[in-house]
């Protein structure tokens, strides 16, 4: 029976009350830790792995439509400047040019901010857009625009922006108890200051869209993590109903948080397509992607901790200055990510004061990048915790164990499940933590070695709304339809696994689809580590309904009560063992009819906070002569509840660790302070890790399902593995050398400066 209920919904720590449609039949008993499962929890290759390995996967950049035009975008070459003039008519007069949009052009859609700026607020901001028969003609039109730009003063230094009080929004001020007094009264105090860099998502497929109109109906292929939010944004912007817009995101070449909604590419492609009556393709080139695809904002954080001699943390003062940037179609203006959530909630402490200052700088506005806020906040706070351990003469893991909490320090609510202590133990065992001090003995290779740890916290509990439908045909083949856009995480494969398990079919009897809004089977944005915990319970509910109907029909055919039948491995069996037949003995009688079921995600239980946890331990070797840090091994043990597919789960962890490692060691957008223009907006100078940089990565999980989460007990795994890596590496460096770098990434010059 379907009902509308009001429930709390969480996205990356932001809570809101929403109405959701729930069906009590969808609430199944959560699979227990020792549940006898045939497919869930066993490694399975991706359902679409072969298509990806053979180059058959069709990404947005691969879409070619008959009569398609190519768009190109003029971007600001300066950090701040006023457009005095653009030669729009000269561009329009060139061969092949079919549409030109400038800052003064009246657009047929609405947007939250100017789409094409007359006053640029950052280098790379779009000023004009053209559509032409070929990309070469479109680029020639850009050259003909001959922009005359009056350069205006810029600010790219966050400290200067702070001095000028260029606040993007009101600072956040979160306090409990009296941190100042507690700090003054503490037995031991430490202070740590850290700068973290602007960090670019750098998906290898850039932002891209192909748009085509048929009458008043719009179809858009969009390289996005949120096809439904893209659909809704396009509908709202162009004044359409949702059913008039179809967004396709079948294959997305990475996102990491940076590809939200329709964004500039889809809005402008749709406008150009509307104006010309032709399909239009708009794809960022690499430099545009690096300047305008998004970024994790640079921060400067200060942590002051106080503790008793026994290691009890008694005071935490934390502040962060965040260079949120300015301009463009980014997140809501001035929105701050939860940089200081680790400081506020990772350990028990009654006296805490945390302030975050978002300042406007002339860089593209920040957007989400895998564990936004929490990752850079952990990089600073978990280094301060290690400094505290050092000051107390305590083992860093022991200090963390002594300050463990079972209750969320911000809300006072208990965690739904928390296996962090087991993660500490397992990580210590896998890393050889007991032998840690021996690493510091003189080494034959002359390198300095050390080992460091860090704790991870993130959300990842998911929630409604999410839906799934399953249709079983006469051949005994099931078709699962979801609202998942699988950006590389393997969530569609995980959905297929859960469907096969609940249906009692083998994997090859289940097809799964997502990446298309046309069926209107809703799924959340691929962000916040919420796809697995949101969509998979709905998939299991849909499967349960189909299985129930199948067994009822089997009861009709074999004249056995449905309660006495079960289906497993594609065979229907009676409890007395008298019947054992292939399911096609039943489905074969359906003819052209199908058995259909749909499921929806129920709410999370009241009275809990749902979080993921983990511990990573890094071992590094430092070449003090040249200032090079080599990561030798990372052990990553995370508590994300039930693991549906260990194969893709370990891939998620490895990828997160490598991105976190590069944040610690090499990745940084470098901005020329004189011009305000980034100087390394390309892949040869923005240093991503290569295969030759990969350390040994040892992955494990707590494997304890969260009994308070519906149906599966699974939480999300997208964010957790990137969160603690940089802090663990920095702590290992400090263990090896007794020094700390004041800024990330720990490049050779910074290492040499720290060692001097």
């Amino acid at each position, binding site marked *: 029976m379907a009902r509308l209920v009001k429930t709390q919904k969480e996205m990356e720590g932001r809570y809101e009350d929403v109405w959701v449609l729930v069906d009590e039949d969808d609430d199944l008993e959560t699979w227990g830790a020792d549940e006898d499962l045939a497919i869930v929890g066993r490694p399975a290759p*991706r359902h679409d792995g072969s298509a990806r390995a053979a180059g058959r996967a069709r990404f947005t950049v691969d879409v070619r439509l008959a009569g398609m035009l190519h768009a190109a975008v003029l971007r600001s070459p300066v950090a701040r400047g006023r457009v005095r003039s653009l030669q729009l008519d000269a561009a329009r007069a060139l061969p092949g040019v079919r549409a030109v949009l400038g800052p003064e052009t009246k657009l047929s859609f609405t947007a939250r901010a100017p789409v094409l700026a007359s006053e640029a607020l950052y280098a790379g901001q779009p000023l004009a857009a053209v559509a032409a028969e070929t990309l070469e003609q479109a680029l020639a039109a850009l050259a003909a625009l001959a922009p005359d730009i009056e350069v205006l003063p810029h600010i790219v230094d966050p400290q200067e922006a702070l001095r000028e009080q260029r606040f993007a929004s009101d600072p956040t001020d979160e306090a409990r108890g009296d941190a100042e007094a507690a700090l003054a009264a503490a037995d031991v105090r430490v202070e740590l200051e850290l700068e973290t860099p602007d960090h670019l998502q750098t*998906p290898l497929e850039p932002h891209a869209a192909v748009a085509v109109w048929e009458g008043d109906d719009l179809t858009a292929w969009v390289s996005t993590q949120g096809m439904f939010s893209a659909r809704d944004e396009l509908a709202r912007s162009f004044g359409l109903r949702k059913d008039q817009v179809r967004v396709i995101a079948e294959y997305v070449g990475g996102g990491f948080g940076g590809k939200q909604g329709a964004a500039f590419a889809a809005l402008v492609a749709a406008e150009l397509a509307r104006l010309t009556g032709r399909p239009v393709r708009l794809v960022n080139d690499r430099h545009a992607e690096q300047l305008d695809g998004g970024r994790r904002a640079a921060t400067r954080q200060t942590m002051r901790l106080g503790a008793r001699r026994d290691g009890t943390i008694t005071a935490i003062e934390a502040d962060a200055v965040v260079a949120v940037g300015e301009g463009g179609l980014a997140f809501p203006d001035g929105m701050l990510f939860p940089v200081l959530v680790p400081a506020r909630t990772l350990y028990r402490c009654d006296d805490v004061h945390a302030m975050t200052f978002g300042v406007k700088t002339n860089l593209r506005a920040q957007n989400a990048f895998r564990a936004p806020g929490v990752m850079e906040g952990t990089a600073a706070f978990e280094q301060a915790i290690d400094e505290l351990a050092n000051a107390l003469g305590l083992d860093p893991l022991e200090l963390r164990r002594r300050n463990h909490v079972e209750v969320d320090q911000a809300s006072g609510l208990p965690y739904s499940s928390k296996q962090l202590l087991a993660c500490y133990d397992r990580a210590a065992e896998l890393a050889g933590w007991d032998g840690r001090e021996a690493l510091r003995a003189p080494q034959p290779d002359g390198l300095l070695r050390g080992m460091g740890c860090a704790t991870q916290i993130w959300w990842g509990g998911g929630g409604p709304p999410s839906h799934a439908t399953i249709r079983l045909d006469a051949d005994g083949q099931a078709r699962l339809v979801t609202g998942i856009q699988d950006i590389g995480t393997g969530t569609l494969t995980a959905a297929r696994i859960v469907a096969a398990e609940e249906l009692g079919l083998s994997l090859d009897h289940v097809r799964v689809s997502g990446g298309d809004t046309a069926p209107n089977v809703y799924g959340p944005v691929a962000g916040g580590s919420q796809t697995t915990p949101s969509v998979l319970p709905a998939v299991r509910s849909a499967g349960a309904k189909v299985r129930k109907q199948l067994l009822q029909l089997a009861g009709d055919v074999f004249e056995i009560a449905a309660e006495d039948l079960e289906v497993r491995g594609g065979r229907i069996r009676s409890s007395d063992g008298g019947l054992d037949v292939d399911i096609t003995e039943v489905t074969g009688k359906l003819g052209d009819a199908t058995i259909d079921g749909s499921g929806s995600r129920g709410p999370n239980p009241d009275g809990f906070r749902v979080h993921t946890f983990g511990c990573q331990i890094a071992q590094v070797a430092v070449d003090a002569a040249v200032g090079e840090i080599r990561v030798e091994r990372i052990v990553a043990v995370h508590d994300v509840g039930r693991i549906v597919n260990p194969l893709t789960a370990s*891939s998620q962890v490895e990828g997160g660790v490598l991105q976190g490692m590069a944040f610690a060691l090499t990745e940084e957008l470098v901005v020329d302070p004189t011009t305000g223009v980034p100087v390394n907006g390309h892949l040869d100078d923005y240093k991503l890790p290569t295969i030759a940089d990969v350390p040994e990565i040892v992955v494990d999980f707590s494997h304890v399902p969260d009994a308070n989460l519906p149906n599966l007990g699974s939480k999300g795994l997208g964010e957790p593995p990137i969160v603690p890596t940089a802090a663990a590496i920095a702590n290992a460096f400090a263990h090896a050398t007794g020094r700390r770098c004041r800024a990330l990434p720990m490049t050779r010059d910074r290492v040499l400066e720290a060692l001097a």
Partner: protein
Amino acid sequence: MQITLDVNGELHELFISAGRRLVDVLRDELELSGTKVGCGEGACGACAVLLDGRPVNSCLLLAAAAEGHAIVTIEGISHHGDTALQEAFVAEDALQCGFCTPGQVVSATALLARTPQPTRDQIHAAMAGNLCRCGAYPKIERAILRASGGGG
């Protein structure tokens, strides 16, 4: 200009402008979209194709300069994904979003052709020009070892 390209064992007569890059001709004229453009600047390897058996970045090569050479794209390696290497990529989960994967498979195919049983160092040297932002590297290494019979 008119050129003849030998792509995946087939000859194609094409009329193109002299400045066209090989990757654009492959993707736009021959509709071989498995070859990707990640940077267009020779820094990521997503556009790797085989030129007389050697992996090259097709974004850095003029199409006209490829005339007279045997070009093999990911589609020519196997559009069905049924080479031992491609099967190893799937079995080991050596891919996530899949955008860099065709280039990875092309480079690894060339490596295994000249070094059938590569060491880890040889894999690192041969594959360091193929970026994977998702971080599938540990499993790419395992897949290459598996396909070479050397592990996995």
